[in-house]
């Protein structure tokens, strides 16, 4: 009885073109913001990792200490604060901070569907948030490259920057692809908290539809299915990428992904 009612509701929601369009917009928003967050976070996370790993020796010259100490401190503090607070709270603080300076994201690109001012704000937040996690991932990756290879590079006369670019960083990134991929999956799901600042993503659209149609159970079931579809798809793509990189033949048993709760720990 109850279930058949819910399925009827799902059917009636999906029959409405307006709602379907909103859901598709939400899907686009979620996919794009998760990709921006993951790629942007990876890029800036690499620099965060450099900052946290700055080597300062006792006999380093004072002008090096002058920039290295503050930079390393800043990177560390950033990482601790961002990983220690929820993204939802970060988003709200970000919004209030900009209001303080008279910037209201309501007024930016407000006639563009999905990719409006709030989407911009949400993109910045998810990048800044993911950066902190990516920083840790890259650090772990860099630490995983054997000291022997670094010595081999030094003995060839490579400087620290050349060693990083040609030897350690490529291996750190390659070895971290599974964990980097998990961040994408986390971002697909966790971008839903950005509804608090009106980012047009899947959950925000669902709330809007629920408010109009009162078919709460049905719309939340629909977006749950959408999220599941997206995360499974992402898992499959990541698996193909990492198997390609390892030069292995592709194995089509995708549907178990390991360690999906990376961000939390």
């Amino acid at each position, binding site marked *: 009885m109850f279930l058949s009612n819910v399925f009827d509701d799902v059917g009636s929601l999906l029959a409405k073109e307006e709602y379907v369009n909103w859901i598709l917009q939400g899907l686009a928003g979620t996919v794009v913001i998760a990709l921006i967050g993951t790629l942007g976070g990876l890029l800036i996370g690499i620099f965060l990792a450099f900052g946290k790993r700055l080597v300062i020796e006792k006999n380093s010259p004072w002008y090096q200490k002058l920039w290295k100490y503050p930079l390393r401190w800043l990177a560390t503090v950033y990482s601790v604060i961002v990983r220690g607070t929820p993204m939802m709270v970060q988003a709200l603080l970000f919004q209030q901070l900009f209001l303080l300076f008279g910037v209201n994201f309501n007024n930016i690109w407000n006639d563009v569907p999905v990719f409006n001012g709030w989407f911009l704000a949400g993109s910045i937040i998810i990048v800044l948030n993911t950066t902190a996690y990516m920083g840790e991932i890259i650090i772990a990756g860099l630490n995983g490259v054997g000291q*022997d290879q670094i*010595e*081999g590079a030094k*003995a060839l*006369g*490579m*400087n620290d920057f*050349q060693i990083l670019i040609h030897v350690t960083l490529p291996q750190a990134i390659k070895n971290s692809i599974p964990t980097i991929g998990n961040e994408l999956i986390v971002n697909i799901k966790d971008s839903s908290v950005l509804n608090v600042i009106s980012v047009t993503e899947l959950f925000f659209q669902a709330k809007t539809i629920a408010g109009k149609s009162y078919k709460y159970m049905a719309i939340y079931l629909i977006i749950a299915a959408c999220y599941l579809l997206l995360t499974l798809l992402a898992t499959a793509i990541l698996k193909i990428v990492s198997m390609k990189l390892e030069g292995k033949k592709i194995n089509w048993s995708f549907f178990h992904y390991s360690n999906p709760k990376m961000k939390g720990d």
Partner: protein
Amino acid sequence: MKKNLSVFDIDDYKDPIISIEHLKKNFDNTEVLKDVSFTVNKGECVVIIGSSGSGKSTMLRCINLLERPTSGSIKFKGIDILDKNIPVNKLREKVSMVFQSFDLFNNMNVLKNCIIGQTKVLKRNPLEAKKIALDNLTKVGMIDRKDFKISEISGGQKQRVAIARALSMSPDVILFDEPTSALDPEMVGEVLGVMKELAKEGMTMIVVTHEMAFARDVADKVIFMDNGYIVETGTSEEIFSSPKEERTREFLSRYIG
């Protein structure tokens, strides 16, 4: 060809090419090298023997400044390399090193391992670098494996690639730190064979090894180190046939029986 001339690009230096005097090295409070002095002439193969922990690796690593000596002097082509103004990486271009653990780059194939230092450090153009790398891979008998990943070749093959990588930098000296100690016995021969060939061609080499047969056959000069000191130096004939010091005799009796 782009060339980056440095203080060490000199050909008219007088022997010895390397001269080490009263070298000391402490790690925190432990003295590892206590007073080490010796010279290496151009084209010589100097073999260093001694029990483990005697400071052989530390001494070798001081020569390309992977370790900074506590005191003493090291001159390369007559230039004091401990001078603070000496660019360390220019020295390392000229003094290559082959390690016990191969230290190849896992993110590059065999050929790329032999090219990267040439293009990035020596700024050779990629075509020239590739040609030199291929020549050296041929020399060490690894040309048919040039496209292999490092994980796909054996230990002996890795060490031969590491030698080709070192050679590709066209160094003046190659330092070998126990190049065969991590190898299965059946692979030791192929590596020593390559090294013997290099010595014959007149490459200047300093080799730390426990392979006494190699030392006896190939070394122009043998140095026995113990406990941070050089105990005895001589030709391989002198050290192996008539060692003067009791400690040398004792050490050799453990290896040769």
